[in-house]
């Protein structure tokens, strides 16, 4: 079957099987930031935005993207690098494999919540697993990133 979607601001057409997952379609279209970490919707690595809403692309059929707007990390590279610099400044980028999914959710959270408390941040990002950092360094980076405008 054929679908059309807006991928990172550009029209993308694809021929897919009915069972193709959005995750696999996006990687086949060159969006390699989208990673698979599990098969059970537990890890958050494959997070993308569908019409601006964070979505696990491992759990969405590619067919459902038809007519929708999909954003991956490749579409928000400048913002990703801005937040990523805070992650790296804490040494919390580490292996980097969970970073794309985490960053997509952090950027979505920034749009959605105004001045979230640490508990709210933890809850919002609970679905983003990380095995390297114990989360503490990530949380410091997120806090500093969200506070950057206040200090500026």
């Amino acid at each position, binding site marked *: 079957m054929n679908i059309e979607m807006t991928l990172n601001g550009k029209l993308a057409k694809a021929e897919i099987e009915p069972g193709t997952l959005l995750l696999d379609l996006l990687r086949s279209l060159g969006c390699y930031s989208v990673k698979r*970490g599990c098969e059970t919707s537990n890890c958050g690595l494959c997070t993308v935005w569908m019409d601006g809403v964070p979505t696990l692309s491992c759990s969405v059929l590619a067919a459902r993207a038809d007519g929708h707007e999909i954003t*991956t990390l490749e579409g928000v590279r400048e913002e990703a690098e801005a937040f990523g610099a805070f992650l790296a400044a*804490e040494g919390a980028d580490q292996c*980097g494999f969970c*970073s794309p999914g985490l960053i997509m959710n952090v950027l979505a959270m920034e749009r959605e919540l105004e001045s979230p408390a640490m508990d709210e941040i933890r809850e919002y990002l*609970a*679905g983003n*697993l990380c095995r*390297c950092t*114990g989360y503490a360094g990530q949380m410091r980076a997120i806090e500093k990133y969200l506070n950057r405008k206040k200090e500026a």
Partner: protein
Amino acid sequence: MEKKETFVGSSVSKKDYRALVTGKPVYTDDIAPRDCLVVKVLRCPHAHAWIEEIDTSKAAAYPGIEAVFTWEDCSQKRFTLAGQTYPEPSPYDRLVLDRRMRFVGDAAAIVAGATEEAVDRALKLIKIKYQVLEPVLDFRTAKDNPVLIHPEDSWQSLCTVGADNKRNLCAAGEEAHGDVDSILASCDHVIERTYHCKANQQAMMETFRTYAELDAYGRLVVTSSTQIPFHVRRIVANALDIPKSKVRVIKPRIGGGFGAKQTAVSEMYPAFVTWKTGKPSKMIFSRYESQIASSPRHEMEVTVRLGADKNGVFQAVDLYTLSNTGAFGEHGPTTVGLSGHKSIPLYSTIKAFRFHYDVVYTNTMSAGAYRGYGATQGIFALESAVNEMAMELHMDPVKLREMNMVHEGDVMPAYYGETANSCALDRCMKRAKEMIGWDEKWPCKDMGNGKVRAVGVAMAMQGSSISKVDVAGATLKLNDDGFYSLMIGASDMGTGCDTTLAQVAADCLGCDLDNIVTHGVDTDVSPYDSGSYASSTAYLTGMAVVKASQSMVEKIKEKGAEYLGLTADDVDFDGDRVYCVDGDAFISLKDIGNQVMCNNGKALEVTESHSSPVSPPPFMVGMAEIELDKETCAFELVDYVGVIDCGTPINPNLVRVQTEGGLGQGIGMAMFEDVTRSERGRVYENSFMQYKLPTRMDTGNIRVEIESSYEPTGPFGVKSVGEVVINTPSPAIAGAVAAATGVQIRELPVTPEKIFRELASSIK
């Protein structure tokens, strides 16, 4: 001369961070050729079986299938997948495909095809007639069991480790210092307890994955997410029974390892397919496969007999470890050693010790290397026993440790007789106490709302490289305009060694960090390095970098002097220029770099190796504060404090994150991550749905500080940080639960259900 910026001790960002945070395609599956064959294996549903017949005709004929392989297609020479220095202590007990199936998930056949869909279909079309055999599932019954896991005569043990395949023994041994039994008999207090650690999964976010292709010379190029590129070259050559010269291994960016990738879990399958078919191929492990057929921690049961006099001064310890290596012996003979060698030396008052062990084969998934490597299991046992001793003596467990702990300058008989030349364990304890407010909080406080808060403590140690075994290498090249290439054979797996080793080189060469380009591992190009394991990189490869830098400086001086018409004795080098000591003549590094590319017979390139006769332990203290519901026994980790002595931190931020990350994994092991099996040997926790990694809601408030010491044998005083950090949470959290409830949980993870049951039975 103006003072230059130095980099050792500075928290610079990692050199590769921009690629990582902008999602660049830098990992194995991102860079695999698009036309790779997809490789998968058919996994056996039985814990122990013999393949009587195998019919692959329908599978091979399925559209899109390139090849199907069975045991008949493979070499019958056995080898090990353990990434260790040759001759490996791990027995040669593997084949690429075997006729005997030894655990649920063992590989029965390999299928390669154009698409994942075709391969999945073909896997279902393979018909196997199994003779189902009785399995050995309980590791307590494995030794001398009439059912043998490896009865075959082609099984081989290369080293003297007490292995005997006719007794299901992967290793066995005993060592002693002093008369343990008579000293224990004279002790006022003796604690004898058995502690049980499970086969935890490293669960790095990037699963096992490899792709293989043939290059223009007909050589097999294996690109893999591995900690051990040079060992993989040997392992793949052994597995395929081809010359090592035919194999090249490349390591791209790695999505975490934690020891899992110190075993060649995925490499041989695509390597085999590409060698047989001539076509590029890749194997990407699913999370399911990574949970059921990989290289988790060795399940161990550790029995401790700890004796103290009436004042609480430790006299003797007797430690017996029973380790379950599973179906194959990867890292079996070596992990067990650390359960004694890296727990007992924490206490210098002990006059005698005995350490004995058995490592047994069973029909469960093969174990491997996981951060801590046996020390974690031994420390859970000994540190829990010390907490139980404190309870028996009605003493503060911190005071008991302060009375008995190892100090700088102490000889450690249980640690190969090495001396603790750098040890800030006492300062770590003092600082941890202050940070958590131990004196106010110990043992517990009733919150008046049905909840009780309590604290627990543990100490830990590890090593820094494998003494007299590990080899580290570093090559430095001076290029045009005076920039350096730093080639290393150690694998950066997210830990940041491509950056930290450049920090070391920059300080030795007196240059800016950006003037050093680090090249990760390619076995055709990089200097030999045994790999990134055993907490070796900063300590050992760091020293190789220091040596290479010193040699490079000498070469630069010689060359500069030559260009100035002087001798090397007349000149010095300040990082930017070679200058005459008594005069104004100088030549810049940039000019030297450019001039050596014309009419030059001496390369400005050096390679140095380093091995260490000692393995200086890093030390750590961890303290946990929990809040426990007295009715349900549910508990939360409120606070975790870790203070580490890793010698000199090269990059304090990376040390801190390593420490926090190790604590996070340790907290998972202590509280959530269980491994259980069905009666027929199937692992229940086969996905992240059942295998509970801690989320950021679960890890509490992790707080880390560094107490530096100076290790004289390390580069800039460095020891290690990678592994020691996982060791304290299990005993500290179990200790806090005991302080809150009076019951000690001796089997991990410590769950509300176990506490509740123990409490209920203790009331009866």
